[in-house]
C-alpha cells in the first residue's frame, strides 16, 4: 500500500473512486477524528458538506400545475452531474422525525454549469411524500440524495427519429431528454432529431411543462407535440398512431406513464414485431401488497430468489434458499439481521408497520409485502 492510499484509507469508503487531494486531506484528518470522520463535524456547520452520503438543498419550488411542482435542488459534495437524461434519483426528506425515501425522474438536462438539478413531482392522493413536496416543502430544506440511476435513457448521439409517448407525470423523464436535445441543438448549432411527442393529461391545465412544450414546438421545426386532453376526448388509442404519427414503426420510442398504457404499448409493438424499438419506464407508484400474501424475495448479492407467504420471515426465506443472511436473536431485539431493502415493501410482523425501499429492515421479524429485493 502506497503512502497516499494509506493516508486516504480511513475515508476511502466515503467517496470511493474520487481521486483528489480532498480525499487525502480527509483521510489524514480522519485519523485524528476517528472513529468519527471530519464530515461528522463539518456537516454540523453545513449539512451539504457531508460526504458520507449525498446531500442537497432545495433552492426553489415552482408550481407546474395545481397538483404538481418542480423542485430545484443544489447537490452538495460528491454529486456527479454526468448523468444521462431520463435517469432518476433517490431523494430523502426529513418529516416528523423520520427520513422518507422515494425515487423521482430528473427533469433537468445534465450539465455542470448551473450546479443544480431538478425533479418534478405530482401529488398523489395517498402519497405522503409527494404531497409534502408539492404542497409545502420550504426552500432551503436539506435532502438526502442517491446517485442518478436507471437505463431509461436517451443515447448520445440520439437516433434520427424519435417518438415520445407519455401520460400524466410520465412526462418527467422525457422532459430531461427534451431539454437535453434542446440544449445540444443550441450549443452545437445542430438541428433537433425528428421528434414526435404524444402526451395525455386530463385537461389543459393539468399538462405539466405546457408552456415549455409549446416553446419547443414553436422554435424547433422538427419537434411536434400532440397533446390529448383525456377528460374531453378520452384516452389516446394506439390505433390512432397511424394518423398522428404515420411513421411510428420506424421510430425509436420512449414511453412512460401508467401501467396499463405501458402494457398496451408492449402488446401493440410486439404484434408489429418491433418490440426492440420501444423503451419503457414502469412509472407507476409501487405499493405494498397489504393483503399479506407475501411475494417473491430476491437476495441481490447471492442472486437467489424465493417465493413465500406473508407469514414467513425474510430471514427464514433467505436461509431456506441458502442466501448468506446475518442473524441474531430471531425475536427483533438485537439488530444483527438488519439489511437494506432495495426494492419493494416489507411488513414488520410485530407492529404491522410498512417499510419501503431505501430503509434498512430487521429480517427476523419482517415478511414480504409483494415482491421485494434485499441487498444481501
Amino acid at each position, binding site marked *: 500500500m502506497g503512502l497516499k492510499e494509506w493516508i486516504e484509507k480511513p475515508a476511502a469508503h466515503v467517496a470511493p473512486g474520487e481521486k483528489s487531494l480532498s480525499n487525502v486531506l480527509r483521510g489524514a484528518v480522519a485519523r485524528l477524528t476517528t472513529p468519527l470522520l471530519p464530515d461528522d*463535524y463539518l456537516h454540523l456547520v453545513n449539512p451539504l458538506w457531508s460526504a*458520507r452520503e449525498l446531500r442537497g438543498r432545495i433552492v426553489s419550488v415552482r408550481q407546474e400545475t395545481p397538483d404538481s411542482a418542480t423542485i430545484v435542488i443544489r447537490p452538495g459534495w460528491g454529486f456527479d452531474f454526468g448523468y444521462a437524461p431520463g435517469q432518476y434519483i433517490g431523494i430523502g426528506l*426529513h418529516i416528523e422525525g423520520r*427520513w422518507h425515501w422515494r425515487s423521482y425522474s430528473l427533469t433537468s438536462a445534465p450539465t455542470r454549469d448551473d450546479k443544480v438539478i431538478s425533479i418534478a413531482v405530482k401529488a398523489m392522493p395517498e402519497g405522503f411524500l409527494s404531497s409534502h413536496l408539492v404542497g409545502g416543502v420550504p426552500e432551503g430544506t436539506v435532502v438526502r440524495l442517491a446517485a442518478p440511476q436507471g437505463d431509461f435513457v436517451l443515447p448520445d448521439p440520439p437516433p434520427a427519429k424519435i417518438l415520445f409517448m407519455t401520460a400524466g407525470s410520465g412526462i418527467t423523464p422525457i422532459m430531461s431528454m427534451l431539454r437535453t436535445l434542446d440544449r445540444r441543438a443550441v450549443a452545437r448549432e445542430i438541428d433537433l432529431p425528428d421528434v414526435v411527442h404524444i402526451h395525455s393529461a386530463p385537461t389543459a391545465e393539468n399538462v405539466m411543462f405546457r408552456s415549455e412544450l409549446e416553446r419547443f414546438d414553436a422554435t424547433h421545426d422538427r419537434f411536434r407535440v400532440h397533446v390529448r386532453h383525456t377528460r374531453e376526448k378520452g384516452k389516446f388509442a394506439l390505433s390512432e398512431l397511424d394518423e398522428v404519427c404515420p411513421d411510428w414503426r420506424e421510430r425509436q420510442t420512449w414511453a412512460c406513464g401508467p401501467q396499463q398504457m405501458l402494457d398496451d404499448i408492449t402488446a401493440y409493438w410486439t404484434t408489429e414485431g418491433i418490440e426492440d424499438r420501444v423503451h419503457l419506464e414502469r412509472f407507476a407508484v409501487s405499493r405494498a401488497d397489504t393483503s399479506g400474501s407475501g411475494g417473491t424475495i430476491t437476495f441481490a448479492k447471492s442472486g437467489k430468489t424465493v417465493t413465500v407467504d406473508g407469514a414467513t420471515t425474510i430471514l427464514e426465506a433467505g436461509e431456506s434458499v441458502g442466501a448468506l443472511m446475518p442473524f*441474531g*436473536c430471531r*425475536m427483533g431485539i438485537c439488530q444483527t439481521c438488519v439489511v437494506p431493502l432495495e426494492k419493494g415493501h416489507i411488513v414488520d410482523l410485530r407492529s404491522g408497520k410498512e417499510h419501503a425501499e431505501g430503509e*434498512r429492515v430487521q429480517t427476523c421479524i419482517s415478511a414480504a409485502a409483494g415482491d421485494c429485493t434485499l441487498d444481501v
Partner: protein
Amino acid sequence: MAITDIRAFSHLTEDDIVALANEFDAIRRDVENSRGPRDARYIHSVIRLQRVLEVAGRCALFGSRRRSRWLIGTAALSLAKIIENMELGHNVMHGQWDWMNDPEIHSTSWEWDQTGPSEHWKRAHNYAHHTYTNIVGMDEDVGFGILRMTRDEKWRPINLLQPFANVVLALTFEWGIALHDLSAKKEAEGVPPAQWNSGPNREFAVKAGRQVVKDLVFFPALTGPAWRSTLSANLTANVIRNIWAYLVIFCGHFPDGAEKFTAEHYENETRGEWYLRQLLGSANISGGRAMDFLTGNLSYQIEHHLFPDLPSNRYPEIAARVRALCGKYDLPYTTGSLARQYWLALRTIHKLAVPDRFLKATSDDAPETSSERKFDRWRPDVPAPATEASTGRHRGLLTALRVHAEHAVAERRRRRGESRRRQRSAAV
C-alpha cells in the same frame, strides 16, 4: 441453582404471565407509534453537544501545560467520551434510532470511541447478552469471564485474586470489553483462538490501533510543547470513562435482586417469561435527570432490558408504566442509588472470591442469586398465586418474598436465642 422455573419463582399463574406479556407488548406499541420529531430533536442535540464538548476539550488541551486548562480540557473530553459511549454509541447500536431511517445515526453504520470494533460488540452485547440475559453459562457478561459473580459458578483458586482483578477491570474497562467481544466474535465465526491473523483479530488490531494512536500519539503531538500534559489528559479521560462505564454496567446487573437463570429455563421460555427474565435480571439506579443522561439512560436498566431497541429518552415514561405493572402483578422492581447498588455488587465480588465452604447462603437463597427453591422450606405458608377480584391486583413474588423474609428473620432470632441459651447453660 439459579432460577430454572420462572413461573414458580414469580408466583404467577400461566394466565397472569400471558396477561403481563400483553401489557408489555402494549407499552412497546404505544412508544413505537408515538416516536416523532421530539425524539429526533433529542438525539440530534445530544450529538451536537457531544461533538462540541469534544472539540472544546481538544482545543483547551492546547494549553494543557496550565493546570486550569488541563482540568477543563480533561473534564470536557471525559464528558464527551462518556456521552459518546453511553447515550450515543450504546443506544444507537441497539437500533434505538433506526426508525428515523437516517444512515448516519443507524445501528449498521455507527462506530464508537472505544478500542473494540462496533461489529464485535454488537455480536457479544446485542445478541448474546440481550438474548440470554443472566443465563449462567450462556450470557458471558455475567462476570465477563473474569469475576465470579454468582455462586452458581464453581469457585476456582484464581477467584482469590478477584478484588484485584476487579480494580484492573474498572480501570481498563474498554479493553476488557474489547477482548471479551473479540473472543465472542471468534467463537461466532468459528475461528480458532490461536490463529493470529484471523479476520476478527485484524479488525480488532486496526480499530484498537487507530484509537490508541489518536489519543496517545496524534493529539499529543498536535499540541506540540504541551504533548506531555495532553497525553496525560487523554489517558485520564479514557480512564474516567472506563470507570464510569464499569460502574453503570455493574450497578445494572450485579446488585442483590438481579437474578440469574439456568439454560434449562431458557429452552421452553414463553414471551411472557422472557419479559419476566429481563425484569427480574436487571437493576436500576435511582437519581435525577443528570444521572439518567450520563448513564445513557441505563439507570433504567430494567426498561432497557425489556425494550432494548426503544429510544432511550423514552425510558423514564416507560419506567412509570413498568413500575405500575410491577405493583399490579406484585413483582419486585430492583432499584437504588448508585452508591447502594455498587456497594451490593462490590460485596458480592469480595464475598465470592473465597470458596463456598466459607459462605453461609446456598445458591438457591443467597443475596446475589436465588431460585424457586428458596421458598421450599416455607411453601405451606406462602399463599398461592391469586387475583383479587375487587381490585384486579395479583398476588405474586413480592408477597412470597415478604413471607420468606419474615420466616428468615424469625429463624435467625430463634437461632440467636438458642445459642445464647446454650452459652448461658455452658457458663452455669
